[in-house]
């Protein structure tokens, strides 16, 4: 069971890091590597998108390998994360549209918020069942 688990975790880690790498290439490539080439920019975005899909499939694969308690912990964490992401995202957008913050609302802030919320809620939920 542990070997299977580790295999799936490694697979998810590989697809996550390649997704981050292809995201960096698609973001900085047009300006610093291929000088806004008309074919390479959309190609890099498509590769990044496809990589993202494979990352989601690897995550689903790992999730399906969880036992019943782990599934419950992660499901609760996902619910909390989804709810908070919607509330935080809308409030953050309102702060921008009402000019209460100086800078524009950035999607990267929301992505970081989602990641941290999921991590925190998973840790808290795991402690509850110790």
């Amino acid at each position, binding site marked *: 069971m542990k070997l299977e688990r580790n295999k799936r975790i490694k697979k998810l880690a590989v697809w996550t890091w390649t997704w981050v790498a292809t995201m960096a290439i698609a973001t900085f490539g047009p300006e610093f590597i291929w000088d806004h080439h008309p074919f390479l920019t959309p190609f890099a975005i498509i590769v990044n998108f496809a990589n993202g899909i494979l990352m989601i499939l690897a995550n689903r694969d790992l999730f399906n390998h969880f*036992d019943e*308690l782990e599934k419950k912990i992660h499901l609760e964490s996902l619910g909390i994360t989804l709810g908070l992401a919607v509330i935080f995202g809308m409030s953050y957008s309102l702060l921008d549209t009402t000019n209460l913050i100086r800078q524009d609302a950035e999607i990267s802030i929301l992505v970081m918020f989602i990641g941290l919320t999921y991590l925190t809620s998973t840790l808290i939920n795991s402690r509850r069942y*110790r």
Partner: protein
Amino acid sequence: MKNKIRELRTAGNMTQEDLAEIIGVSRQTINAIEKGKFDPSLPTAFKMSKLFKLPIEQMFFFDE
């Protein structure tokens, strides 16, 4: 729900890790079941019933 999984496990000289491996769940799940913090699914309860050779109602007690 209360249960006597810990007593049955220790009587069988098993660690939580051993029981988890046989049932096909994590050690944390066995620990949570023993402490009454988590109620197992029906398939897990049946696996335990088969392992300890006891009917489910003699292992798990509904706490009203």
